[in-house]
């Protein structure tokens, strides 16, 4: 009976895994097909003839298919978009994590007015859908002359990622026992040493979790990039790839190749972080 149950469970897990993975596999498959094979009916699961044409076009430019007289083809901007996305995602993640970690630490360790309210207000701010404040924020950026700049977009992402990062780090620091810091103080460490050598290593799993969150939100965002950015060479990837859809026809080969390349940083990020994420979680225990 138990074996049957296990077999059933495995079958179920395989099915779920397939459903989750299928879009990605389909994207990979499509990105490797020649253009004439993409729309063939019945569709082919695996490309009959492999081609890296779409990737070549994205990474090295020079689209032969672009209409004459249409100016630079959108695929030539792909590396710009990719770099833009990396810059704003890494930038907003670094800013959010730095501010959130320091703020959360002070919220749990020092006494000041409004100390208890801040994390709750922050999390409530996070619950407001970003579509509500994207336009007020756009007007603010206009005032600051930061529209259509990577800095403006980065700050926009900080606004949506910081509250949740703060909440996450706050919850994490509350679980770090004060006594280990006191022990380090008695051992002769300075406040800064305590923070760097004792608190940060303990908080690492929390920092990694918050970083992954902030990076994903920034990397996947479409709305802010669409509203704040204008110049072709300053767009983030999500907004940029929409130019492969020109109103009359969609270049699915480029679209799918872009999607595959877009997932690469995420895959690398998870590959590296996962180990730390899992390794760190048991670390908080000090009680006997």
């Amino acid at each position, binding site marked *: 009976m138990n074996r049957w149950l296990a077999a059933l469970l495995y079958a179920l897990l395989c099915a779920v895994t397939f459903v989750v993975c299928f879009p990605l596999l389909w994207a990979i498959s499509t990105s490797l097909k020649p253009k004439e094979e993409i729309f063939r009916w019945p569709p082919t699961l695996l490309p009959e003839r492999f081609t890296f044409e779409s990737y070549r076009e994205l990474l090295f430019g020079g689209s032969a298919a672009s209409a004459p007289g249409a100016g630079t083809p959108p695929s030539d901007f792909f590396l710009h978009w990719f770099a833009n996305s990396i810059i704003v995602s890494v930038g907003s993640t670094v800013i959010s994590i730095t501010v959130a970690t320091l703020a959360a630490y002070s919220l749990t360790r020092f006494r000041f007015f409004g100390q208890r309210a801040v994390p709750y207000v922050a999390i409530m701010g996070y619950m407001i859908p970003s579509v509500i404040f994207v336009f007020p924020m756009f007007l603010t950026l206009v005032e600051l002359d930061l529209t259509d700049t990577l800095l403006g977009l980065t700050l926009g992402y900080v606004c949506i990622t910081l509250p949740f990062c703060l909440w996450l780090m706050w919850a994490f620091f509350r679980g770090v026992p004060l*006594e280990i810091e006191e022990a380090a103080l008695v051992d002769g460490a300075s406040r800064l040493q305590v923070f760097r050598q004792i608190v940060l290593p303990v908080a*690492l799993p929390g920092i990694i979790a918050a970083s992954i969150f902030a990076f994903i939100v920034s990397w996947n965002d479409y709305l802010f990039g669409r509203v704040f950015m204008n110049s072709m060479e300053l767009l983030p990837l999500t907004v940029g790839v929409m130019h492969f859809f020109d109103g009359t026809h969609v270049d699915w080969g480029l679209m799918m190749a872009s999607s595959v390349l877009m997932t690469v940083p995420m895959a690398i990020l998870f590959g590296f972080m996962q180990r730390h994420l899992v390794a760190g979680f048991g*670390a908080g225990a000090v009680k006997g």
Partner: protein
Amino acid sequence: MTDVVISGLSKSFGSNRVLQSLDLRVPSRQFVTLLGPSGCGKTTLLRLIAGLEKSSQGEIRFGEKRVDTLAPGDRNIAMVFQSYALYPTMSVARNIGYGLEVRRIGKPERTARIGAVAKVLEILHLLARKPKALSGGQRQRVALGRAMVRKPDIFLMDEPLSNLDAKLRAAMRGELRRFHLDLGTTTIYVTHDQLEAMTMSDLVVVMNEGVVQQIGTPEEVYARPANLFVAGFIGTPPMNLVPARHEGGVLSVAGAKLPVAVPPGAPAELILGIRPQDLGVARPGDAGTIPGKVWMVELIGSERLIEMEVAPKLRLTAEVRARQRAAIDDAIAFRPDPAQIHLFDPATGASLTAAR
């Protein structure tokens, strides 16, 4: 060679006064226990000595040096926390050596000192492990090692045994005492467990509500409690405390006359204290005994506790040999050992007999 002198020390958290103008001298090389119920201010006092809290008033000196303005790291103290407070991301070796590391002591010396301490504590085989891979007793030893490796002037310990199981606690009591005798470092030890205080200390400081009730050797606080609080707090089962009166040099409890000399100038109404161990069973009607009837009998191994009702809501407990039997509701009498009777002033709670 560091004695700790505390004078006029007060500490308030908001309007809550935790310590009230406290004076205390901890002699050099002694093992001194701060003993009291939870909330009596003993941990706060320890944290003030460590520098983890700021005093509201008063001063703390280590020898000649005033320390209450110094940061914890500048006081050359080591502290063992109730939760051990090991650094979870560091190995046992680095946990022990961290204090040396931040003091910029070179790696060869650090390694040597960590090794020496680990050898004494028998944790050499654990040095590479992380705290989460240790048992409670092993963590306790690492915390102790971290304190010992720095060769501090003073050890501060905040209920270090309370997270251990009973058997390990008993073993560690002996070991801690042994380490203290070997190292000779002034130690201030906080506990609410009177057994720990009695077995380990050179001096016991009994505290209640932020005030020192009595300072003395374990024998002194047990045999000559300075006031009603100490009398009731020290000793298991607790001392019997019953109202008594004296007239014309004769002391009586619930009408029974007892052959006790009352110190001159004592008020007519008194509180009489007698430990359960100092009461013997007698026949009702014997002279110098207190009669009543058996209320409850409990066997606690080699001893038996007999609780006798003298009058409504007035009961005395005697601890007698287990072979002494008694049946509930039987008439019985207790004979107090006159030399072991304590008398207290009900108005002040102060002992009238402690100076004896």
